[in-house]
């Protein structure tokens, strides 16, 4: 398993708690940073706002991005990530309650690496999170982070 931070962009404290529970259950011990809205997520990635001064070279291993967010929507966040050279290749996995075809299509069009629909059941969700970790923290090879070769 790769070390490194997982950035969880999620406005619902319930969903954050459930996600953290699922990580716990699957013994995923990576650091999880929670951004409560789209703006905060970008602040974190680009060292702005309350994250000003953070080493922005230290990118998360993967971003778990909800689509329905206050202030800046998930898709807007995704566009900004892809638009910025520094984060253009950052793995972003959309984690949404929506199964609407339009949401899925737009996410991929804007450069999402994967799209996961949140299942209703917690057990199922925990399983989805396990698969997610196995793949993105295990199987998947990503571009080595600058400064940490």
């Amino acid at each position, binding site marked *: 398993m790769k070390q490194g931070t997982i950035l969880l962009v999620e406005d619902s404290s319930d*969903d954050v708690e459930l996600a953290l529970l699922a990580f716990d259950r699957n013994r995923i011990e990576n650091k999880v940073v929670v951004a409560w809205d789209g703006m905060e997520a970008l602040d974190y990635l680009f060292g702005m706002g309350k994250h000003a001064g953070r080493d922005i070279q230290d990118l998360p291993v993967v971003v778990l991005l909800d689509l329905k967010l206050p202030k800046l929507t998930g898709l807007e966040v995704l566009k900004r990530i892809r638009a910025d050279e520094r984060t253009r290749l950052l793995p972003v996995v959309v984690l949404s309650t929506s199964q609407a075809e339009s949401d899925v299509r737009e996410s991929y069009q804007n450069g999402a690496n994967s799209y996961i629909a949140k299942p*209703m*059941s917690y057990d199922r969700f*925990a399983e989805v999170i396990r698969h997610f970790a196995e793949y993105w923290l295990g199987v998947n090879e990503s571009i080595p982070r600058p400064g940490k070769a």
Partner: protein
Amino acid sequence: MSWYVVLSLLICLTATIWSIFNLTQQREWRLGILTVTVAYLTLRYLLGFLQRIGYGNGPNEWGEIEELATSLWALLVVVLLGQMLQLRKKAEAAVRESEITYRGLFEATDDAIVLVDRETKALIDVNRAACERYGYTRAEMLQMLISDLSSEPRKTRESLETGERRIPIRYHRKRDGSAFPVEITRSQFNQNGRPMIVCVIRDITERKKSEELSRRREQQLRMHNQALGQLSRSEAWERGGLHAAFQEITKVAARALEVERVSVWLFDRGRTKIICRDLYERSWNRHSSGFSLFASDHPSYFKALSLNRVIAADDAATDQRTREFSETYLKPNAIASMLDAPIRLQGRSVGVICHEQVGRARNWSPEDEAFAGSVADFVAIALEAEDRKRAQLALSESEERYRALYEDIPSMYFTLDTEGKVLSVNRYGLEHLGYSTLELLGQPVLNLFYEEDREPAKRHLAHCLKHPEKISEWELRKVCKDGRVIWVREYVRVRRGTDDHLVFLVVCEDITERKQAEEQVRQFNLELEQRVVERTAQLQVANKELESFSYSASHDLRAPLRSISGFSEALLSDYAEKLDAKAEDYLNRIRTASKRMSQLIDALLSLSRITRREMRRTSVDLSDIAQSIASDLQAATPDRQVEFVIPPGLKANADPTLMRILLENLLGNAWKYTSRSERAQVELGATGEPGDLTYFVRDNGVGFDSDLAETLFMPFHRLHSKKEFEGEGIGLTTVHRIMQRHGGRVWAEGQIDQGATIYFKFNAP
């Protein structure tokens, strides 16, 4: 001899010969002798005178003539006396003979002859007829006076004194005391110096009787004639109609015929009975009507009605034609005699007039019968008059009706001559156009048309004239007098008029309102199209809104659900050791409920997607789709054994995606509900004509209560509990919605445990 001697001789001779000839003819021989003697004496006197005056040759000459005259006179006297004796003998023989003849006559005659002594009034002689007539013997009668024979002896005595020759009527008395009328002829003569009267007494009983009879008959005839005259002059049926006529006829007839009851009866329509139209009762002077007599009850009478001119029943109770009435009619009304005359109209008997004698029977005379027949004829005349009156009334009414119809029907009627000049217009036409008759008659009809329409109208009329067999029609504009322009529809036909000229018959209707209505409809349609465009745009906006609502609903509703279910599961799996059994149960309930709600939201969303989807109809192979769904179902549950019956090439003109969803639902249901059947079978098929097919999906599963077939298609309505069969209750609602979108329909047939068949049918695209 001198001339006057010759003349005297000639006169004497001529007088003598003429006298003898004349007197022998008259057998007055006494006068003959006297005449001859006078002639002789005259001649002698003349001769004496001639001798005295000394005329002639001498007294000898006159003596010869005197001797000759004396001889001639004596001869003539002898001849005449001889003749006289012979004549007397003859006369005596004649008297004897005549006496015998007169005696014979006296005895043989039917008239009673009596010889009365004028002074004693005693009967001197009577003939045989007298004895027979008076009932006495000859001996008895010769003891009687003439007054003993008379019922009026004083009159008889008086008349003997006056010596009347003829007594036209006197009543005499027979031996038995009965009186009888006689006519007496008397003559007087002397017998042996006693004045006698011979009376020829004629019994005139029979003559009196027949005189009385003919007098009565005459009187009756006069009454009959008066009655008929009165009827013929009567205007009752002209003024008062049939009822009044009948009343007059019955009354007049009852009085003229002197009967108690007269009634008029007419057949009903079916000729099964006669109905009394009027009955007059003379002693009450009243009229009544309304009773019936049925042909079936009185066959002989009804037969007689059709055969006889008059039914004269002197004794109605025994007469075979009328005795049928005896108990029911004659006795209750005390009718003794009937005189009934059938009423004939155009050779058909239409009824009967009855004259009924109450009380004593009556012998109807031929005059009575003739009168009854005439009265029946009057009834027929009254009926005819009524018919004629009614026909005239009907005719004039119908004429009036047609006239009114023609004038006031809300159509304009024109007749035009071949040049298009107006010959006539009805009242409505005049009023509608606002012209007077004078303004239109003789004017060219083209002037009435709107200026632009005059040319077409002219063409139409010309065309009409070329095709007189057809009714032509057109719609053009006309102008009223006040300048108003109206649309008219005209129907025109050419006909030959009474004077052999061709005329146009034009029926013209004002269709301005219709034209306006048409214009309004056209405007309305335009507006409607516009409105549809607007509405469609509005709908599109509404659809967009709905879509975004559904999207956020699905997201926003699901988020809290996920929390509920997520945390309850987290509690169950991660904190299991800290929960007691009850807490665990509650958490499970929370989890199940939230899961169910999530499914409902999903179903709702999919339903709204179907409603919103854009539809494209094309030829869809239902068999292909069904096959693929069947394999999916089989693959998902490989342990189930279900036989799918799907004929190849079943096509429908529909939206392919929606058809897939439809079949998924129907086949999925069938699959689900056959799970307990031993030999599960699911069939897709179609019935009906190609192009008008009804499709169906049939299974042999648990079926449903047919009473609830209607509710099957209601959203979230389930006929089975969740425990029995999984499902959201949205499948058939979805099917229904899809068929609705195709403008088709869907319905279900089934019974519990008998399987279910869902039919669906498209409309023509």
